[in-house]
C-alpha cells in the first residue's frame, strides 16, 4: 500500500510541476523549473519536499528535519562517512520510491547541468567503492574494516544525506542540504530569493567510464579554465599566475566567514571575450542551482566584474594539475587538484556576503 501511495504522490508532483511550467517539456521537471519565476521555483521545490516527506514514515521524517537555528547549517564536509558523520536522511536507508522522490527534489532544485554534476559525483564515489578505494587493505565491498565511527571509510551512492534546515516554506527561510563524500550542496531559500553558498562540488575519480561513455563531473570547469589562461597574452598571464604552489583549497570546509585578500589579474584587464570566458567558468558553479535563481546570481556577479580577480597556479597545459581561483566582492571559487593529481579535484563556491543566506536573513 505504501508504494501505491508514494507513486500517487510522485505522479501528483510531476503533474503539478508540468502544470506550473505550462506544459510538457523535454528534460522533465528541471527543464520545467527553468522557465519559472524565482517565487514559483521555490513553490515547486517546496511541493517536491512535501511529496518526499509524505512518502516517509515518522522516523525518517524526524531524521530529515532540523531547526533553522542550530549547528546543522555548518555541518558539511568533503570527507567520506566513517570519519565525518553527517546527519539527515541517508540515501542507503530509503526505499526505491523514496529515493526517487529525493532525486526528483534534486532535479527540481538544480539546473539540468547541476543535476548531472551531482549525480556524476555520486556515481564517481560508487566507482571508488566498487574499486576498493574505500577499504583499507584493498577491495572489501566499500566498507572499511573499522566500520563507521571507528576509522573505516565508507564510500558509495548510499552515503549521501538530505536535510531540511528549517521547515520547507514559500514564505519563510529554510535550507536544503544534500551531501556526502566530495559533495556539499547548501541551498538557502526565502521566497523568491536563494543562495547556494557555501557549496563544495569535488570529484574522485575525476574521469571514469560509465555505460561506455567517459564521465568527467568537473571536466567543463577544468577545460574552460585552461582555455581562459591560454587565451591571455604573456603579460596578462604574468599578472594571473601566482609564483607559488597552491596545495589545497584556502577557504574549504571550516573556513566560514573568512575572506582572503584577492590576487591575480583583475577582470578589467581582460578583453571582452576573456571576460565572457571568465563568466562562463563562474556559471559552472553558480548555474548548479535552477536557472530561476542562477540568472539573478549571475547578474550580480556580472555587476561586480570590475572588482573580480582570476588567479592561477601551476602549468598552463591542459591535462596538468593546476589550481585556480576566481574572487569578487560576492564570490569565491577555488579549484584545487589534490597532491598534484588530475584525478582528484576539490572545489569550493562561496559568497562571503551571503553564505548560508546571511544577506537574505539580514534584510
Amino acid at each position, binding site marked *: 500500500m505504501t508504494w501505491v501511495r508514494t507513486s500517487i504522490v510522485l505522479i501528483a508532483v510531476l503533474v503539478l510541476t508540468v502544470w506550473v511550467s505550462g506544459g510538457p517539456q523535454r528534460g522533465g521537471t528541471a527543464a520545467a523549473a527553468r522557465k519559472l519565476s524565482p517565487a514559483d521555483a521555490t513553490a515547486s521545490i517546496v511541493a517536491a519536499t512535501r511529496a518526499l516527506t509524505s512518502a516517509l514514515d515518522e522516523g525518517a521524517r524526524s531524521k530529515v528535519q532540523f531547526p533553522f537555528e542550530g549547528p546543522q547549517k555548518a555541518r558539511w564536509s568533503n*570527507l*567520506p562517512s*566513517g*570519519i*565525518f558523520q553527517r546527519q539527515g536522511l541517508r540515501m542507503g536507508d530509503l526505499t526505491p520510491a523514496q529515493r526517487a522522490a529525493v532525486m526528483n527534489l534534486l532535479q527540481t532544485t538544480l539546473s539540468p547541468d547541476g543535476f548531472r554534476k551531482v549525480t556524476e559525483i555520486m556515481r564517481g564515489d560508487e566507482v*571508488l567503492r566498487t574499486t*576498493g*578505494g*574505500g*577499504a*583499507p*587493505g*584493498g577491495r572489501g565491498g566499500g566498507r*572499511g*574494516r*573499522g566500520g563507521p565511527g*571507528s*576509522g573505516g*571509510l565508507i*564510500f558509495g551512492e548510499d552515503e549521501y544525506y538530505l536535510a531540511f534546515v528549517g521547515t520547507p516554506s514559500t514564505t519563510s527561510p529554510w535550507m536544503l542540504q544534500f551531501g556526502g*563524500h*566530495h559533495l556539499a550542496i547548501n541551498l538557502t531559500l526565502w521566497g523568491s530569493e536563494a543562495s547556494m553558498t557555501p557549496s563544495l562540488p569535488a570529484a*574522485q575519480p575525476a574521469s571514469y567510464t560509465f555505460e561506455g561513455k567517459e564521465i568527467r563531473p568537473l571536466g567543463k570547469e577544468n577545460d574552460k579554465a585552461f582555455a581562459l589562461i591560454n587565451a591571455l597574452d604573456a603579460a596578462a598571464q604574468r599578472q594571473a599566475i*601566482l*609564483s*607559488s*604552489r*597552491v*596545495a*589545497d583549497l*584556502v577557504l574549504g570546509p*571550516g*573556513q566560514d566567514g*573568512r*575572506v*582572503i*585578500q584577492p*590576487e591575480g589579474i583583475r577582470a578589467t584587464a581582460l578583453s571582452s571575450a576573456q571576460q565572457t570566458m571568465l563568466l562562463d567558468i563562474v556559471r559552472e558553479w553558480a548555474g548548479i542551482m535552477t536557472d530561476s535563481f542562477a540568472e539573478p546570481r549571475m547578474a550580480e556577479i556580472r555587476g561586480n566584474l570590475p572588482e573580480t580577480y582570476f588567479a592561477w597556479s601551476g602549468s598552463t597545459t591542459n591535462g596538468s594539475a593546476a589550481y585556480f581561483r576566481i574572487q569578487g566582492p560576492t564570490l569565491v571559487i577555488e579549484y584545487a587538484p*589534490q*597532491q598534484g593529481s588530475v584525478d*582528484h579535484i576539490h572545489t569550493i563556491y562561496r559568497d562571503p556576503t551571503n553564505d548560508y543566506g546571511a544577506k537574505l536573513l539580514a534584510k
Partner: protein
Amino acid sequence: MTTARSSWRSKRAVALTLILVLAGAVAISAHRRDEYLQAARIAIDPDRVEIALDLTPGISVAADVLARIDRDGDTFVSPDEARAYARELQRVVALDVDGAPLRLELVDDTFPPVEAVRNGEGAMRVNLAAPLPPLAAGVHHLRYRNSHRSDIGVYLANALVPANDRVEVTAQRRDADQRELIIDYVLRPPRTHPRVQLSAGVALMSMLGVWRRRRRMESR
C-alpha cells in the same frame, strides 16, 4: 568509574584503529598521503596580528606526526600533549614587522579525533597572535615564516582582508612553496571622530567671530 571505563574503551578503540590501519597495506584513496599541509590565514589589525594555523598530516605521514605529539606513546593525544605541540608551533613560526621580530602568543588550540588524523583528514588548529608596536602611518611589511616539518610540509599562507579600514593590504609576496609570506600593507592614521571634528569647527568659528567683532570695535 563510568568515565574511567569509557576512557579505557576509547583508548582501546584508538589502539584497535591503529592496529587495523598499520596491519593492512593501506590503499585508501581520496586523502592526502605523504604531505603535511600547514595552512596559515593571517589577519592584520592596526595593533595586532592573528594567525590561524590548520595542520593536516597525510595518511602516510600521520603516524610519524602523531608520534611526535603523543609523547607517552599511549595512542591517545591528551590536552597537555596537544598544548605542548601547539607551543612547538608557536616557537617555530617566525613573524616580524619591518624587520623587527614579534613575540607570538598561543591563543588556543583544538585537536581532532586521533582516527581522523590517522586517516589523513584531521586538521589540528592552532591560533597564534602577536601585539604590534605603535607604527607610523604609511607602508609596512609583515613577514611570516613557517619551517615546521619542512621534510614533509606543504604550506599555504594567505592574508585575510583586514577587518579594520585603517589597514589595506597592497601585495603578498611568497617563496615558491609558501613557507614564507611577506604582506605589504598601508596603515592609515586614526580617523578623528566626527563629533570632535564638529566641536573643533564650532570652536574655530566662534574664535573667528570674536576676533572679527574685536577688530570691528577697534576700528570704530
